[in-house]
């Protein structure tokens, strides 16, 4: 069954939804939406560097995405406004990445593939990278869940419980970098942040607990992948963006239901 490109694409998208659901919830709760963007943009620089030094693209993107995430964490502690900092770093990382790519003579890469991803071109090897990464990210977040949640609620409350919120922030940063690195080939840089945030946001109106929200976000992400791929096949539309469109429609739907619920 792995021979069918549609099956491989669906499995890749489901793996990504699996990892980005709990992670996306934390990104939303901690108001780090642009953090995902910044890390994803930095990944383009990682792609360029990997090609220049003929390393694996996975390693290059993980390293650069991690560095980016660490720089943001450190500078924000030094008192820079978070949104300014992320704006500066996200766009400059993308620009430096694009410039760096242009220096690579003799190598022609399809940058569009990294910007928008090509979920239909996923190979068996890619699948194992995605599922390996997703399993790692989900176990990491599952393992630190209570600590992460407590530090998200309040840093001092975490300290009083013997939890170091800076360490938890680092856990989140690492998970984000790995997710970006495994996802870059599937949905591409520009759509990673969307897959992180939109399923989580769509899950919010129907959740009563943090755990429920993470599970709902996962289900929405997975279903959107399957429906999005089918729609792309039927309508001959680009696959990655079609998936994101389905998550966005889900978001509108759940928000609307919530509004109706309030009226009653």
């Amino acid at each position, binding site marked *: 069954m792995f021979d069918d490109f549609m099956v491989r694409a669906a499995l890749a998208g489901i793996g990504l939804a699996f990892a980005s659901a709990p992670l996306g919830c934390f990104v*939303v*709760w*901690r*108001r780090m939406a642009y953090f995902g963007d910044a890390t994803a943009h930095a990944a383009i620089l990682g792609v360029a560097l990997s090609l220049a030094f003929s390393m694996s693209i996975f390693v290059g993107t993980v390293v650069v995405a991690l560095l980016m995430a660490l720089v943001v964490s450190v500078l924000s502690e030094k008192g820079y406004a978070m949104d300014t900092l992320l704006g500066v770093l996200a766009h400059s990382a993308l620009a430096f990445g694009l410039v760096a790519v242009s220096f690579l003579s003799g190598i022609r890469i399809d940058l569009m593939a990294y910007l928008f991803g090509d979920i239909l071109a996923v190979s068996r090897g890619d699948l194992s990278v995605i599922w390996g990464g997703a399993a790692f990210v989900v176990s990491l977040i599952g393992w630190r869940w*209570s*600590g992460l*949640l*407590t530090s*998200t*609620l*309040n*840093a*001092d*409350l*975490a*300290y*009083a*419980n*013997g*939890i170091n919120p800076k360490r938890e922030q680092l856990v989140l940063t690492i998970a984000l970098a790995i997710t970006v690195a495994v996802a870059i080939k599937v949905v591409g840089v520009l759509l990673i942040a969307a897959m992180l945030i939109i399923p989580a*946001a769509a899950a*919010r109106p129907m*959740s*009563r*607990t*943090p755990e*429920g*929200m993470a599970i709902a976000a996962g289900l929405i992400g997975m279903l959107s992948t399957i429906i999005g791929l089918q729609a792309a096949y039927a309508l001959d539309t680009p696959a990655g963006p079609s998936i994101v469109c389905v998550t966005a429609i889900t978001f509108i739907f759940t928000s609307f239901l919530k509004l109706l619920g309030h009226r009653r």
Partner: protein
Amino acid sequence: MSLIHVEGLSVSYGARMALSDVSLRIEPNEIVTIVGPNGSGKTSLLRAIIGAVKPLAGSIVHASNLKIGYVPQKLHIDETLPITVSRFLRLPGGLADVDYALKQAGVPELEKEQLSQLSGGQFQRVLLARALIGKPDLLLLDEATQGLDQRGSASFYQQIETVRKATGCAILMISHELHVVMSASDRVICLNGHVCCEGAPAAVASAPEYRALFGTGTGGALALYRHEHDHDHGDHCHNQDAE
């Protein structure tokens, strides 16, 4: 043995000294209140005790197996984070006696409510319940009645007194409400970057250092804040009695 023994504690944020050479002890079963103007290092002292800031100098010794319950100054729950009161109380421990804690805090009916839907008074009670859930030996309260009206805060402090009677825990709290403090505390510590004066409420209220900080008109009990920004230890605390 003291629950907490703070010796020569100094805390700084960059170049700004928040606390210098602060020493104090908290004994079992006593209610100690910290008063002091804004920026006098009250919150920094509590944060140092829970380990959220590293001291520049000095030591903080906890009694062995000391369990601390902490009620922060304010807690903003992001609207995007769905969480019920009982799930909040179970963090991060997992197993916990939610019923017991909510009863102690006087709000047994809130267990299934969403945290973001609570009123200010209910929210403070839930924070108190969370601090009590580990059956602490010492309860730290950082301006726990901020944003509550007079009735709300009076009933909150009554609850604290009830909690102490029921559990025998010691309480170290920061408060701006001097009239409440004066009636509810065993001991008052007047802080302004350093310990200005301390002792029984009546003794502190008549101390010249305290009057220098909080004014004299009402005998200290209902003082308005007269806050000297360019506070200097020697001058302020010992020479300006007549202010």
